[in-house]
C-alpha cells in the first residue's frame, strides 16, 4: 500500500515503466486534464446516485426479510445473498444479455411495437447493473438494524393509530439511521471502486476511475499514473470508511 503511494510520485518512463524520481507530475496530469476530472466527477455522481437508489430499493426488502414470520424466511434471505457469491463477472454478463440488442428488454419493447434501442454502453446500463450487484450489500446492514428494534415499539405506534407510512417515518426511520448510514457508505465505497461492471457494460464511453487504473496499468503500462489514480480513489474510499467509523462511534455514544 505504501509502495503505491510512493510510486504515485515516480516519473513515468516509456522504457523502464518507473523511475525513482519524485515528481508531482502524475497528480498534476490528473487534475489538469478535464477528461480525468470528468471521470472523477462521473464516478462520484455514480456512487451517490447508486447508493441512494439502492438504499431506497433495499429498505422495504430488508424490512420484509427481517419481520416475516414465514417458514421461508431463510429461503428469502438465501435468494437475496446467493447472487453475491457468484462473482461480479457472471452477474454483469447476465446484464449484457438482458440489455443487448436482441436482449430481453428489447424483445419486450418490440412486443409493443417499439424500435430496438441501444442500451448497452450507456451510463444507465452501468447504473442498473451496479444497483443489482449492490442490493444484497445494502440489505444486510439494514436488516441487522431493523432486527434490533423491538417489534412491540412498532405495534405500540400502530395501536395508537399510526398508519404504515407514519410508523416508518416516525419510528423505523429514526431508529435505523445507523443501518442506513453504514449501508449507504458501503454501497458508495464499493460503487466508486467498481471496475468489471463499467468495463463490460459501459465500455470506453462510460469511464469510471477504477477502469482508468486498470487500463493505464495493463494497456499503457503507465504505472506511476495508475498509482496516482489509485491513491485518489483510495483517498475517497478511506475517507468514506472514516466517516462510517465516526457515525458508528456516535451512534454508540448516543445509546
Amino acid at each position: 500500500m505504501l509502495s503505491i503511494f510512493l510510486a504515485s510520485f515516480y516519473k513515468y518512463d516509456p522504457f523502464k515503466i518507473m523511475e525513482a524520481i519524485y515528481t508531482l507530475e502524475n497528480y498534476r496530469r490528473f487534475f489538469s486534464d478535464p477528461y480525468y476530472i470528468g471521470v472523477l466527477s462521473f464516478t462520484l455522481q455514480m456512487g451517490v446516485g447508486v447508493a441512494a437508489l439502492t438504499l431506497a430499493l433495499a429498505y422495504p426488502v430488508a424490512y420484509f426479510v427481517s419481520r416475516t414470520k414465514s417458514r421461508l424466511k431463510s429461503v428469502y434471505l438465501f435468494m437475496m445473498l446467493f447472487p453475491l457469491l457468484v462473482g461480479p463477472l457472471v452477474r454483469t454478463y447476465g446484464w449484457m444479455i438482458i440489455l443487448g440488442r436482441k436482449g430481453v428488454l428489447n424483445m419486450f419493447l418490440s412486443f409493443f411495437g417499439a424500435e430496438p434501442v441501444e442500451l448497452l454502453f450507456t451510463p444507465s446500463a452501468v447504473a442498473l447493473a451496479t444497483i443489482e450487484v449492490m442490493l444484497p450489500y445494502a440489505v444486510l446492514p439494514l436488516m441487522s438494524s431493523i432486527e434490533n428494534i423491538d417489534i412491540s415499539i412498532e405495534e405500540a405506534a400502530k395501536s395508537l393509530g399510526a398508519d404504515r407510512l407514519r410508523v416508518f417515518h416516525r419510528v423505523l426511520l429514526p431508529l435505523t439511521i445507523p443501518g442506513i448510514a453504514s449501508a449507504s457508505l458501503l454501497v458508495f465505497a464499493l460503487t466508486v471502486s467498481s471496475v468489471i461492471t463499467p468495463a463490460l457494460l459501459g465500455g470506453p464511453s462510460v469511464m469510471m476511475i477504477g477502469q482508468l487504473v486498470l487500463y493505464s496499468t495493463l494497456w499503457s503500462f503507465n504505472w506511476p499514473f495508475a498509482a496516482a489514480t489509485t491513491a485518489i480513489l483510495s483517498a475517497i474510499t478511506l475517507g468514506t470508511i472514516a466517516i462510517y467509523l465516526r457515525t458508528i462511534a456516535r451512534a454508540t455514544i448516543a445509546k
Partner: protein
Amino acid sequence: MKLSDAVYKIYLAAIYIFIMGSPIIVFAISFNPTTSLSFPPEGFSPRWYEEFLKDRIFVDSFFRVSLSLAIITSIISVVLGLSSSFVMVRYDFHGKSLVESFLLSPMWMPAVLVGLGLLQFFVLLGIGGSFLALLIGHVLVATPYASRCIYASLHGFDRSLEEAALSLGADKIKALLLVTIPMIRPGLIAGMLFSFIRSFGEITMTLFITGPRTTTVQVAMFTYLQWESTPVIAAISTVQSLMVLGVALIIERAIGLREVLR
C-alpha cells in the same frame, strides 16, 4: 387484504425478479442452439457446453488454473484463518481492535489498490505472472472471510470443554485435535468453502497479477467478452453458478450465509 399490502407484495416480487433475473436468463441462454444471445432461446441444445469443453483456453483456465487455485487457496486460508482467530479470541494485545476490524472487514479495500500493489510487489520479487503470485493474492483476499467463519464458531465455543479434556489428561495438541477442532467444524467447513468461492469468482484484483500461463477462467471470460459474445460464456457461467449454489447451500447449513457476509 388491503391495497397497500398488495402493492408491497408486488414490489417485493419485482425486486426478487430483478435479483434472480440475470442468473436465470444466463441459464436459459446457455442452452441456445445458435450463436445469438436472443431471448427466449431458439431451442434446446448442449452445443455450448461441448464448445466449452473443446476450447483449450477455457478448459485450461477453468480446471488447471482456477479450480486448483481455489482449492489450494481455501486450504491455506483456513489454516491462516484458524490461527488468526485463535489469537483474536484467546489473547489480548495492543491494537487488537484495529487488527480485528482489518481482518473482519475485507470488503472495504478497493480491489484495484490491492491489485496494483501486489503487481508492483511481485515484479520487485521477480515472481510476476507466476502461479505463486496468483496464490498469494488470492490467499490475501480470501483469508478474512475464512477468519470470519472460524472466528464466529470459536467465539461461541465453550472453553470449559477444552479445560475438561486437559484436566482429564489430554495434552494441548490432543485437546485441540479431539475437542476444539471437531466442535468448530461447521465454521471450518464454511470458511474453507467460502474462500473457495471467493477465490474462484475473484476477478478485479486478479486482472492485475495474472500472467499468460496463469489466466483464471474469470479473466479468460472477461478478455473474451471484450471482443465477442457467444453463449459459450453463458455455459461456463452456468457451470460456475451451479457449483457456487451447491457450495452456498452447504455454507448456509453449516453456519448461515449471513454470518459470513455481515
